[in-house]
């Protein structure tokens, strides 16, 4: 068992090492094979673990070796496999595997092929370390590692300065979050005297709810989550992150990276449960992000940007769930989201691939006849994310909304609004892309082609998952048994005891569902009438937009604002320090001493007039002075 646990992260790592070290020697197909198989391997192992875990809910911990030890501080390389991490592992390796396969086709012909797969494997490895780590520091390892990989992958096409900036932005913003996280971790060590989950969680219930240290810790950890899972105010890197090749976006947005924040909070649910303040904070941030993301997405014309902002808002929803203490629902939505968001991105990738690099939906349209498979799968994805039954998104999102409704109507209202917007912009995207007539440029249009099998198969697989994925969490109302919920029980049991249970009557829940579905359909119809019947096309660049639209189109000018209030001042401060303190103050003082001495030399040497008479005079004078001093003291 331990062996398996050890092997799971090891497989992608070895894949990475092999590819990285033998980079030049390897043929492409071999690289692709190694990369995919290594991930597949760990996927299989994860499944094995899953079932071995299935019968007895015992968590497995496997300690490789002691890592850092200094004084009373000691951390070891040890992995923890419990329901939560197994779920994560399954998603990561599963979806990750599909994305690998897809990339094999997508990246075909890029000179960085081998490099790309090396990075992908490394990415998977770090993500696995993140979710499998049995202590905070190991989680931090993965946490930073994925940051690094995102940097490498977003800046994959390193000749383009735009992309490099995007990559740097991603890394630094993550770093800001990471600082919060590491400080939180240190706080945990200070207050719990250990960094391993077991010991911390064992002690946790001892603390009174809302006690200050816990609050500080959770807030600090949450800052980490904000950075990693692209919440306000650190979300801006995520939309830029689509600078990387599309599979990377899929990986980052769906399977790995952004889910880390969700995982981390779910992992620390007990701490958060003990910190109501932080929970509220999470809800607020989550809601704000959800609405903000959704609104921005409405006005975007880049197919990947739209999806990116949808991710932002979806993540917001998940945080709302977590904040409301519905950890399971958060994980549930994350799971389904992983499926359909991966699907959507890969679909988008396929479209771009077919359109030979075109990303602007204003230049698309009528692609359904060129790319049938992509069309079908994309449709499924869109339905899923819009939350229509019986697709996966429906169940997870509904669960969140229900939970919200039960606790706080305003939260529910806003969340619901966000999800309606989601439906709208997704279908806007869908219609503009696939329906109607082609607006593609001539040179593009005549060789639009469906993607190769290596790309479509993952699409189909993901589409299937997006359809049936919801089945793991069919609520009791609809005669299901919330499998995932039960499975995760051991992880959340502590919190469950502390949290007040909110229960909606089944009728209420049913009513809610119908309302949601109905309104969603309505929204979809609006989109349909706008973009199919009236063949409306978003205004092209340069055309002046009405103010609201412009604000949305420019994403509330957030990047610009950051530039003004953070970047520019920092540079200014640096320059000021350099000019004032470094040069004027310190250097002045230091060199001033030297100058003073030289000046003294210049002047004192003039005393040496060379005139003997003067010398003797000086001597006599000083003799007199000496005598005076002596005889009158």
């Amino acid at each position, binding site marked *: 068992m331990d062996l398996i646990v050890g092997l799971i992260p090891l497989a992608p790592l070895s894949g990475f090492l092999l590819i990285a070290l033998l980079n030049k020697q390897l043929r492409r197909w071999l690289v692709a094979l190694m990369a995919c198989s290594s991930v597949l391997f760990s996927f299989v192992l994860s499944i094995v673990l899953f079932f071995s875990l299935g019968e007895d809910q015992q968590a497995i911990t496997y300690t490789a070796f002691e890592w850092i030890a200094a004084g009373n501080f000691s951390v070891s390389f040890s992995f923890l496999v419990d329901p939560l991490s197994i779920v994560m592992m399954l998603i990561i390796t599963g979806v990750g595997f599909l994305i690998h396969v897809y990339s094999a086709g997508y990246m075909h012909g890029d000179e960085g092929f081998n490099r790309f797969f090396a990075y992908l494997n490394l990415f998977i490895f770090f993500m696995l370390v993140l979710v499998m780590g049995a202590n905070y520091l190991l989680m931090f390892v993965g946490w930073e590692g994925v940051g690094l990989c995102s940097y490498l992958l977003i800046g994959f096409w390193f000749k383009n300065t735009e992309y490099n900036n995007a990559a740097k932005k991603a890394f630094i913003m993550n770093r800001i979050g990471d600082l919060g996280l590491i400080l939180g971790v240190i706080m945990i060590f200070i207050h719990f005297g250990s960094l391993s989950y077991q010991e911390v969680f064992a002690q946790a219930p001892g603390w009174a709810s809302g006690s200050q240290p816990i609050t500080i810790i959770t807030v600090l950890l949450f800052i980490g989550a904000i950075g990693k899972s692209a919440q306000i105010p650190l979300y801006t890197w995520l939309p830029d992150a689509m600078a990387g090749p599309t599979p990377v976006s899929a990986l980052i947005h769906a399977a790995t990276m952004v889910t880390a924040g969700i995982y981390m909070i779910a992992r620390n649910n007990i701490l958060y449960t003990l910190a109501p303040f932080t929970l509220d904070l999470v809800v607020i941030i989550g809601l704000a992000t959800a609405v903000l993301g959704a609104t921005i997405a409405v006005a975007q014309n880049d197919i990947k940007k739209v999806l990116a902002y949808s991710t932002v808002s979806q993540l917001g929803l998940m945080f709302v769930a977590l904040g409301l203490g519905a950890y399971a629902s958060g994980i549930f939505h994350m799971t389904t989201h992983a499926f359909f968001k991966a699907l959507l991105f890969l679909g988008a990738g396929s479209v771009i691939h077919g359109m030979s690099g075109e990303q602007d939906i204003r230049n698309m349209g009528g692609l359904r006849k060129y790319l049938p498979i992509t069309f079908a799968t994309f449709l499924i994805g869109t339905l899923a994310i819009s939350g229509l039954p019986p697709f996966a998104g429906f169940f997870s999102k509904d669960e969140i909304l229900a939970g919200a409704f039960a606790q706080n109507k305003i939260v529910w209202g806003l969340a619901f609004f966000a999800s309606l917007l989601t439906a709208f912009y997704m279908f806007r995207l869908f219609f503009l892309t696939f329906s109607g007539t082609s607006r593609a440029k001539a040179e593009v249009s005549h060789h639009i082609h469906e993607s190769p099998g290596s790309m479509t198969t993952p699409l189909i697989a993901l589409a299937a998952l997006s359809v049936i994925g919801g089945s793991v969490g069919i609520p009791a109302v609809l005669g299901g048994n919330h499998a995932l919920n039960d499975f995760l029980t051991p992880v959340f049991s502590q919190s469950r005891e502390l949290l007040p249970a909110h229960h909606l009557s089944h009728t209420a829940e049913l009513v809610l569902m119908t309302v949601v579905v109905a309104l969603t359909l309505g929204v979809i119809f609006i989109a349909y009438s706008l973009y199919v019947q009236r063949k409306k096309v978003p205004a092209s660049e340069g055309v002046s937009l009405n103010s609201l639209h412009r604000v949305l189109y420019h994403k509330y000018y957030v990047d610009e604002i950051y530039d003004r209030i953070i970047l520019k001042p920092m540079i200014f401060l640096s320059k000021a320090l350099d000019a004032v303190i470094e040069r004027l103050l310190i250097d002045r003082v230091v060199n001033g001493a030297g100058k003073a001495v030289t000046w003294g030399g210049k002047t*004192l040497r003039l005393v040496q007039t060379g005139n003997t008479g003067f010398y003797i005079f000086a*001597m006599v004078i000083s003799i007199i002075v000496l005598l005076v*001093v002596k005889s009158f003291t």
Partner: protein
Amino acid sequence: MNSVFILSGLGIFSLLAEIFNIKRWLFPVVILGLILSAVLMALDWNQATAYYSNMLTFDNYAVAFSVTLSLVAVLWFLMSKDYFENTTNITDHFSLILFALVGAIFMVSYSNLAMLFLGIEVLSISLYVLAGSNFQNVFSNEASFKYFLMGSFATGFLLFGIALIYGATASFDLQIIASKVAEGTTTTTQWLYAGILMLIIGLAFKISAVPFHFWAPDVYEGSPTVVTAFMSTIVKIAAFAGFYRLFSTCFSAVSNQWVDVIQVITILTLLVSNITAVYQHSVKRILAYSSVAHAGYLLISLVGLNDISSSAILYYVIAYAVASITAFTVLHNVEVEDENAAVDSFNGLAKRNPYLAFCMGVALLSLAGIPPLAGFFAKYYIFTVAFQSGYIGLVLLAVLTSLIGIYYYFRIIIAMYLKSTEKGEIIQVPLRHTVILAISVLASIIVGVFPDLLVGLI
């Protein structure tokens, strides 16, 4: 003791040498004689014998210093041979130098003020002449003139002081003076104190301590380089040793009367010399100021007078002498091709003659007091003396000034190793000089690494 006669004899011999025209034997004979006399002196070790009704006392202090003097003199002769060969009357020079050396030895071994006075005079008069020994050169004339004028002026004060001391104690014998001073059985204290003050003035002039240092830079610059070397080594050693001998034996009992005066002089010396040296062009002048500065460091040990200060002085003096002999030898070689060498004439020495550059570097580092060279431990030892007597402020000042010192010593080093020069040709060094440099450089390293060779000797 007999060594004194040997040296005087050598002096006369070298005069006769001209007559009997055996000049070519002169040099080896002188060298051998010097070494012989050094050996003979060394035999007096631990005897502390008084000679000629207690005119001279060769206690360990005297022996140590006179041996040092003779050995330095050997090095000096080796260094300056060629200079004299160019002059018309080599024999006169030799005899004068030897007489001066005799005077110097009296100055370190006297136990009667008469001997101190005569020693100083023999030394000075020879030097007045030697400073001017380059007749045609106006600078040389001026140097000797200034030296003479101010020297004899200072002698006046010295004598006045001696007279007052005599008036106070009715004797010239150090022991008697010391005992009377200690018992306070002097005729009147006023005469004593005034006398001490006058002595301080006269001797401070001889060791060129500020504010009686004005002659030093000019004379050093004007005199022929070898003579300057003689002044800044032997004369300085003898003068300070004499100074210290007098005050440590006779007047230590009333040190509270004069110590603050010395302290003031010390502080002035340290500051003025070091700062003034910073902005000099002629290397000779820089070395002159540095020798003034070193007088200041030596004075520290007189301020914080205690049981280890004499050995500190011995160590310091040796370290200093070795280093400056090296420096002057190099300077001498550099001057071969341009007169009155400025700092710039050292440019690119590292390329033109790495050996010279290296030796100069070691010498300067030692003068600047950088470990592990002798100069460092010398300074350190002096500092300990001051510390032990609780003059921490003085130590801090000395540290500060030695930092300033770094600045001007390193100007030369930078010139040698960094600056480039159009004069490409290699400087030829006579074998004799190579040997001296080797000896003295090794000396400053060895003495620096194993200070125990000298520490606690006296």
